[in-house]
């Protein structure tokens, strides 16, 4: 039966690319092959995000008056609503963690080097989009923490030279964070970002398929693993691991809803953003009011953007790796960046 269907389809279109992917695609086998699995885990968690996101949409109401109540209804009245919402929130965090792990793994394997520069750039854009998902989704329950996080986040955008104030208004839908902001964030979260991310993700995956997986410089290759089914089964094991962790977290540490927004209340003590924004938060916190006449927050935001630009441009900065030569300075820089990122995140969380 399957053969008949395949033959019917093949009569109408060329399936050689699919057949090549299924039967002939291989993955280089070496001692770091494991590090290729984080991207698949991120993709798996993204699929979970889409499914749970659609389920949440059935009950969620994106207005200032109803948003908090509707999320409360989901987690208290709808059968398994608490689980769906908890999975959505935890999966978002795990997805961003998986993307970070994927990025650092690829960085240390120097997988960004020629000819995979575009794969790296599209991957970086995906990380930024995933963080955008986190930022816009965070506001949707319309709770106290989300309200102030959005005020700070959008105010930071307002520090952009020349178009800052206009951008702030466009994001907020006015001068302040109000129901209009919630409407805009909802639209961005459920329509704009998914469309953009699926486009960029398609390019990213197409590049991975077209170019295959990179082999680290100077690492002994111990042959090839067929992608299907051998590597796919390893991917599945990774997905299973991610699913077990996700379900464990969602079940035993259900995501809290917090208190509803009161636009005339003070920011509560101990208010902090999600862990993946903590490094930026801490940098902004450390900035003095002004430095050489330049506002501190502008310097902080500029530093964050410069850091991002450096990561984006790594394939073009690391010339040695592009010539298939070892580039130990970039490895050292990566280790320092990773240590700094972890240390500043832990510090911001604790103090």
């Amino acid at each position, binding site marked *: 039966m399957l053969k008949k269907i395949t033959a019917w389809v093949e009569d109408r279109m060329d399936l050689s690319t699919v057949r090549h992917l299924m039967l002939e695609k291989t993955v280089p086998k070496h001692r770091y092959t494991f590090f290729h699995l984080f991207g698949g885990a991120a993709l798996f968690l993204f699929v979970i995000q889409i499914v749970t996101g659609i389920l949440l949409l059935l009950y969620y109401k994106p207005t200032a008056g109803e948003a908090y109540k509707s999320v409360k209804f989901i987690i208290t009245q709808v059968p398994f609503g608490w689980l769906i919402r908890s999975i959505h929130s935890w999966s978002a965090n795990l997805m961003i963690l998986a993307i970070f792990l994927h990025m650092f793994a690829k960085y240390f394997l120097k997988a960004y080097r020629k000819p995979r520069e575009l794969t790296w750039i599209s991957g970086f854009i995906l990380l930024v989009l995933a963080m955008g998902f986190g930022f816009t989704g965070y506001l949707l329950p319309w709770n106290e923490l989300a309200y102030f996080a959005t005020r700070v986040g959008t105010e930071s955008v307002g520090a952009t030279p020349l178009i800052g104030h206009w951008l702030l208004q466009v994001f907020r839908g006015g001068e302040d964070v109000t129901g209009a902001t919630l409407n805009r964030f909802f639209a961005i979260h459920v329509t704009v970002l998914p469309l953009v991310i699926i486009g960029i993700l398609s390019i990213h995956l197409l590049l991975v398929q077209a170019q295959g997986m990179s082999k680290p410089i100077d690492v002994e290759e111990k042959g090839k693993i067929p992608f299907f089914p051998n590597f796919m089964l390893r991917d599945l094991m990774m997905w299973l691991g991610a699913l077990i962790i996700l379900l464990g977290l969602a079940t035993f540490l259900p995501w809290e809803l917090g208190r509803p927004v009161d636009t005339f209340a003070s920011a509560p003590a101990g*208010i902090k953003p999600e862990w993946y924004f903590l490094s930026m938060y801490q940098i902004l916190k*450390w900035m003095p009011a002004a430095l050489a006449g330049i506002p501190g927050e502008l310097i902080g935001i500029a530093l964050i953007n410069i850091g991002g630009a450096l990561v984006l441009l790594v394939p073009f900065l690391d010339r040695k790796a592009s010539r298939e030569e070892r580039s130990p300075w970039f490895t050292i820089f990566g280790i320092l960046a990773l240590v700094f990122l972890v240390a500043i995140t832990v510090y911001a969380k604790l103090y």
Partner: protein
Amino acid sequence: MALSRRKFLNGLLGIFSLGGMAAVMSPVIQYLTPVKKQETAVSSVVAAKANELTPNTGKLFRFGSKPGILIMTPDGEYRAFSAICTHLGCTVQYSSEEQQIWCACHNGHYDLNGNVVSGPPPRPLEAYACFAKGSEIFVQRQKS
């Protein structure tokens, strides 16, 4: 150098394309820019009842569409400020322990005159005038 007909037409096409894009983008950008709402300018409000605050305490009040903070200093004097932190716009609160105005978002501290004591805020809080009238404490915008 003579301009070939092809180059001329390509240039013209480029200009028309840019014009077309501008014609599409302009209404989109204007649509995205929020409509300015007419807000009644509030010049003074009742911030608290006369017996509501005790020395070394504070409360938030609505000043139009923005929050304000009214403080009774340890000496029993009333002071009022905008409650919007000048750093990144969080709402501040009064810390009785430190006898300072504090922003929880990035740990900005202001003294009882609204001046920055520590942390990242770049400017003092906007100060309001306050006065007691009958059993109420009024706050009003200071004339610049």
